């Protein structure tokens, strides 16, 4: 369980990192917290020629709070969010979800951007941030673009990121007063990847009532007009692919319990 040989670079700036990632004919991977990539390297499931260490890039640690929302650098760790070392505009949803990710040791190292870029269907951020209507900021040699988190994943462990692109920041809209949210995940044990996960955000002032079901076999299922648990479950059932009876049931229960959590505030 030792990785194959690779080169390692720790660029000083975001531009240098993007340049290195785009090196012709070199299979390069960005390394942030390493909580998924590390084990994959050790198991030789991925064998990059070059690892570009972005964990200390100052640009990825930036935090900006505006009226309309919050911009979090992609390098911010789950633990920083859990500990409220960054501002919150989501009525406590981000810190609560952050605190339920894996184990504290993972949260100390793992990053927001790393989790999204990895594209694991069971990851908490994919579901939570999609429900919040967050967007990711992507920088590459071709420039800068923004993509809704809900549209980032193309399938299990597949995102729309190009080889030379880095996910640099996440923009989270500010919930209005009176907004409520619910989050629920089914795990066989704490810290394990979820068997089913669901998030609901209801923000009447902004006209948002969105539910998202994660831990699917691919991208999360987004229910834009959620209204209530029953209706949302019907949408989910129609959209779900490849679920067996048990999976259908646990995803539905995650969804219903997320609605319940929302109701109970």
């Amino acid at each position: 369980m030792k990785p194959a040989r690779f080169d390692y670079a720790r660029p000083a700036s975001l531009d240098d990192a993007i340049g290195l990632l785009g090196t012709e004919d070199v299979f390069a991977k960005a390394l942030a917290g390493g909580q998924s990539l590390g084990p994959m390297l050790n198991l030789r499931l991925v064998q990059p020629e070059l690892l570009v260490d972005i964990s200390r890039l100052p640009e990825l640690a930036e935090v900006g709070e505006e009226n309309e929302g919050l911009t979090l650098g992609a390098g911010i760790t789950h633990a920083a969010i859990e500990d409220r070392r960054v501002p919150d505009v989501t009525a406590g949803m981000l810190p609560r979800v952050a605190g339920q990710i894996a184990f504290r040791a993972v949260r100390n190292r793992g990053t927001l951007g790393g989790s999204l870029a990895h594209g694991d269907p069971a990851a908490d951020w994919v579901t939570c941030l999609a429900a919040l209507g967050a967007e990711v900021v992507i920088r590459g040699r071709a420039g800068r673009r923004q993509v809704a988190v809900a549209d980032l994943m193309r399938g299990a462990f597949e995102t729309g990121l190009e080889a030379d692109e880095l996910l640099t920041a996440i923009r989270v809209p500010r919930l209005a007063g009176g907004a409520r949210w619910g989050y629920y995940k089914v795990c066989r044990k704490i810290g394990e990847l979820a068997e089913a996960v669901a998030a609901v955000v209801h923000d009447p002032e902004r006209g948002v009532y969105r539910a998202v079901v994660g831990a699917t076999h691919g991208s999360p299922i987004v229910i834009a007009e959620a209204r209530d648990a029953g209706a949302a479950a019907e949408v989910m059932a129609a959209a779900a692919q490849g679920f067996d009876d048990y999976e259908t049931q646990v995803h539905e229960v995650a969804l219903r319990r997320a609605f319940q959590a929302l109701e109970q505030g």
Partner: protein
Amino acid sequence: MCFGLVATPPVRYNRTTPREGREPARIMTEIAARHVGQPTERTEDLRLLRGRGQYADDLAVSPRTVHAAILRSPHAHAEIVSIDAKAALSLPGVIAVVTGEDVQALTDPFLVALRQPLHQWSLAVGRVRYVGEPVALVLADDRYLAEDALDLLSVSYRELPVALDPAEAAQEDAPLVHEAAGTNLVSVRDFSYGDPDGAFAAADRRIALTTRFPRHSYMPIENFVVVAEYHEGDGAWDVLANFQGPYSTHPVMARALRVPGARLRLRTPRDSGGSFGIKLAVFPYIVLMAIAARMAGRPVKWVEDRYEHLLAANSCPERVTTIEAAVRDDGTITALRFDQLEDYGAYLRAPMPGPLYRMHGAMTGAYDIPNLAITSKIVVTNRMPAGLVRGFGGPQLYFALERLIQRVAVELDLDPLDVIRKNLIPAHAFPYRAAAGALYDSGDYAKAIEIATGDGRLDDLIRRRDAARAEGRLYGIGFAAVVEPGMSNMGYLSTLLTTEARERAGPKNGAISLATVNVDPLGAVSVSADCMPQGQGHETVLAQIVADQLGLAPDEIAVNLAHDTGKDPWSIAAGTYSCRFTPGTAVAVHKAARQLRDKLARIASNTLNLRPDDLVFTGARIQARDNPDNAVAFARAAGVAHWAPATLPDGMAPGLRETAAWTPPELAAPTEGDHINTSLTYGFVFDMCGVEVDPITAQVRIDRYVTMHDSGKLLNPLLAEGQVLGAFAQGVGTALHEEFVYDSEGSFLTATFADYLVPTVNEVPRPEILHMESPSPFTPLGAKGAGEGNCLATPACLANAVADALGIADPQLPMTPKRLHALMAARDEPAP
């Protein structure tokens, strides 16, 4: 408390042996136990909790050491057509590639307990028989290079049909795992005790069920480590490995290496990162690395990684048990019939098939059941070879037996607790000879249950259940009553053989423990012994025992249990497994310390002009019992044996180093009638719990768990509690989470911790632990084994509670949400 003495064999059913009013023969009472019995904190923790432990991988190795990586089979069953190592060998830094041809030329196959041609070497020879089987070994300057070279090895296989499911593999037309054996069903033995046929014929009811105990293992944090070096001049090996015993495997390794035992020096480090039985299974790798070191002419180091560990290190055997009870309408069980089919995987590694026979004498559990029939069958399959896992045959037995008790209650519409109580061995019957030969040393099972259910504990469970059910929730109560064996009879495995075969092979019995206590010229005391602690706290307990004998404080006793077969005492039973420390090694240390004490008392009696019997050892002094001022310092008396041997009492040997051996006479060989006292001590565990099953997610929540233990005299209650907590956590794992899963091709699906779930502190509630003490009359310290009880009881207890909650007859382990969901769905479907 006092206990009767039991007649030595002939073995017979002994339910009515009255307690005799004699003092137990070997409890020594004259030493005041100041430290033994105290909840002394573990002295080991100072280093272990601060990251200062010295584990096998931490110890320095020669700078000439090369590193090994193992290529493993991707197929469950295939012929090895060819191995091409050219590309691997041409990689800079690669030193050698070892294949099955090399091990076949340089070693002999491992000895097998069964007379069957199930040849196994340390690498696959000609054929692979399970996914993960070692096929080739690469030696390189470092582990990274060695793994690079693995990718360059080219092996050509011809795939063969597989035998995976134990019952299917046992069929006549199944693909053969070992063609030379001509069958996968390599052993079938029938046993009968009392009159089972008569009892079944006379029974009001016959109640049966079939259980499947799944494959799993318990996970040490530290995996296998071997460092092997060959000394050309001596023709001998020096191996460091985190082996845990039993050392009956040492001759197996030496024979494979074709050397006398003295030329295989095996050293184990002071600290081990957990074992739970698993580190017996490092032994084939010891032989493999030894051969590699000899071929390379350099020391070889191998550290197993987690992927390898899950894939191929160790598994408990899967057991399919059909158990049937002959029952009276009032719930009295008059006979049991077992049909056990146990899957040992691709090879029968020493000391397999231990799990099938370790409990043999005690198959009737905590119950007074005179008639018993057992059929024990061994099947080989294309899966990882089975080995030691904490509980070792006990969990398999009790999952069947205690599930049956619950079924008897359901079928007869009785309270399960009443069925348990009705059949318990009565307190007056101890020492009690069980139907198949186990000699239960002491206990009062009814009283233990009374204590556990008392103080409102059972009432509270019933109240919780009734309240939950009134709200339509799924809540159940489970019980399990379990006899916990301690210190195995080294002869139990020969029960596997017929009487004639046993006679040919010569008798096997007993279980020898050895320990040495030394006092140096300044009076400092040190201890070495034949155990391999894995976190239990052996150093702490041994210091307590020796301190009591010598009138010193525990922190004045230096205990270092790093072991070296070249220098330290050991025999075949050495090791830390099957709860042998407390009834075994601890007793040997106690005896060695006592021998020293006797010697020092004679020395001091010369100085003080008193009889040795009039002396007491206390406060680092040896003094007159009735005049504390008439005393000599412990160190001074000790010094005499070193500095002034000419002044020693007549006939006394100089020096102060005593090695004691201990083997109890109760551990006799199997009788002609196949009665066998499988262990020396028999503790008692009674578990009781309430669980709730989520009707939608099908997850099991343990609401309240009570566990009652009688482990005889507790040498250190704090350490006993640690054993209970650890075994309970693993029992929860077995019940709810852990299983090795293979697909229909024999591929292994649980090779990472994302797929193989080990419960953590979040999933394991803290049980309420209760104790009572019925000292064993068969050990000088009165203590019994205490390390496995909840591994035996907890899976059965939780399964009984889930069965009660859901009204189902067949809760399968582990009770995962997916499994329970399917069972609940089937239950909800209307009858056709």
